[in-house]
């Protein structure tokens, strides 16, 4: 097992720059998840680590060794593709043993690791099948089996669960988490499902437009997003954002309400779950336009005149009528102040 270090990595296709200034160190045994909107360069970055895409600038080290010029087979990494990329003309057993076959390990020696991986993944009964005779989830497992059989320095996953239906996704997510606990291998995992990111990651890397926006533990990103992009990207439903004019003790919203904010703040973010709803009192008044009852929670889509749409999420059910006016008060400790450039303003208390 080994760590992966990226320093000053950049990628351009012809004239178009896709990735810039990527610095990241993945520790030994760490599970790092790359998230970001479609087209932000996650797959490209992963493929550069794998050696499938040349690196335009910067340095890549795996286990302390410079890898920029090393072909994929020399990097000792395993990758699970979004499409699974199983070899259709080989049985499950041969698919999983293929890396050892290429390494000229004798047949007798291959059977052991394949059988062990099959056991871990519950594939024992399927070893003689061909990929075409497997369900999506089983194919997914075989692809993971092929990766773990080799005991590589690091695992790379590119949206491995995005082709599965919702229920299977949850199941496989747990399986991956369990597998990581068991094997403890260095892993870089690409997804745009933030539940996957939050639940699996030791650290999350949020990317946008080819640049890293923030790196941190899931709770870091949730509690202290570094900028408005991360604030909007992490957390579901999305964080509310209100703008206002600075006054000495905070930010005055369009309706005159003043929410506390440090100097320099131009906008305040507040997550729906940190917005309290009361039938009356003083505070930001808003009209309830839509109610979503999820059972465990209720989402109230409100419109505050001049301030904009605000979503409040309350635990359990609430007795609020559609079209009625409610008073919204933020959990003051959970306000996220951002400056004019969208960067988080460090709070001085």
């Amino acid at each position, binding site marked *: 097992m080994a760590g992966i270090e990226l320093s000053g990595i950049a990628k351009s296709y012809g004239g178009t720059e896709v990735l810039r200034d990527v610095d990241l160190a993945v520790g030994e045994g760490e599970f790092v998840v790359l998230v970001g909107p479609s087209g932000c360069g996650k797959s490209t970055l992963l493929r550069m680590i*794998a*050696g*499938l895409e040349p690196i335009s600038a910067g340095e890549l080290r795996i286990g302390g060794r410079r890898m920029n010029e090393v*072909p*994929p*087979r020399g990097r000792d*990494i*395993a*990758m699970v*593709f979004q*499409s*699974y*990329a*199983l*070899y*259709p*003309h080989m049985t499950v057993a041969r698919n999983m043993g*293929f*890396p050892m076959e*290429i*390494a000229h390990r004798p047949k007798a020696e291959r059977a052991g690791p394949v059988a062990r991986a099959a056991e871990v993944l519950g594939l024992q009964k399927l070893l003689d099948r*061909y*990929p*075409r*005779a*497997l369900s*999506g989830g089983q*194919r997914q497992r075989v692809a993971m089996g*092929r990766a773990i059989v*080799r005991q590589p320095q690091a695992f790379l996953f590119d949206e491995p669960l995005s*082709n599965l239906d919702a229920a299977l996704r949850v199941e496989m997510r747990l399986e991956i988490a369990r597998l990581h606990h068991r094997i403890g291998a260095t892993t870089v995992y690409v997804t745009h499902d933030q539940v996957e990111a939050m639940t699996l990651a030791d650290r999350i890397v949020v990317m946008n437009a080819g640049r890293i926006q923030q790196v941190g533990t899931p709770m870091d990103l949730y509690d202290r997003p570094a900028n408005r992009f991360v604030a909007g990207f992490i957390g579901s439903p999305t964080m509310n954002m209100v703008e206002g004019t600075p006054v000495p003790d905070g930010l005055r919203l369009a309706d005159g309400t003043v929410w506390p904010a440090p100097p320099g703040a131009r906008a305040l973010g507040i997550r729906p779950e940190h917005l309290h709803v009361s039938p009356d009192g003083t505070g930001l008044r808003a009209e309830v336009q839509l109610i979503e009852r999820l059972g465990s929670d209720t989402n109230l889509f409100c419109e505050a005149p001049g301030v904009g749409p605000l979503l409040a999420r309350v635990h359990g059910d609430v007795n609020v009528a559609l079209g009625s006016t409610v008073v919204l008060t933020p959990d003051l400790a959970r306000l996220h102040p951002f400056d004019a450039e969208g960067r988080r303003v460090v709070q001085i208390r």
Partner: protein
Amino acid sequence: MAALGRPHPALVAGKYLALAAYVAFALFPLYWLVKIAVTPDRLVYSEGTRYWPSAATWDNFREVLGSDFLRFFGNSVIVSLSTAAITAVIAAGGGYAFSRFDFRGKRLVSALLLLTQMFPLLIIIAPIYRIVAALGLLNTLPSLIVTYTAFNIPFALFLMQSFFDGIPKDLEEAAMIDGCRRMQALRKVILPLTLPGLGATLGFVFTAAWSEILFALMLIRKEEHMTFPVGLLNFVSKFSVDWGQMMAAGVLALVPSCLFFAFIQRYLVQGLTSGAVKG
């Protein structure tokens, strides 16, 4: 379809009836070929339109097998097999490059390849003759192999390219991550999956070369190097056509084609790549 339940029996019957009618229509010429081949000479004209002659004979076959015909036959086999093999190798290499790599001049080469397919062969027969003559290849089998190969490559190459395009790039990349060099990935993963494509290409080129007559007529004058379609013309003499022997030769000519397709047909089975990716 299966989800819709069993179709009505009448529909099934109708479908098979239509298929049977089509097969009968398509195979009728073949049937007629065989019929004339076994008809004795004296009955060919008198019993012309009967569905089976009153007497059948192997005489025509015996005559044909005793003549030069076996040599024509052998020449054709050599030419067709060599053409098919060489074309398939070149088309596979070229098709792979076209499918997987971006290189300068790709569009130009591909446009030129298409261009070669646009001229009627008749126009270029004279220049080809001069080139072959200049190379000193007139009256040799290689002259045919080279020309056939040249003329079949464009189509075969595009055919192969489309087969390679159908194989996900992920598979090669997975193989390379699993420890393969590019050539190994090609041999262990891509080649086995391209067999249907290779089979189709081989079959196509083989048939084209087997039945080609224009170049064969032009480039080969010596009896001992003639291919079978040219040899067939020997049965047409100035004053008459020896129908029986000609048809017998025709029946024999079908044999290699049938054998060849019987051999490659298992590679023609589609759907070999299913299961590689999410289905």
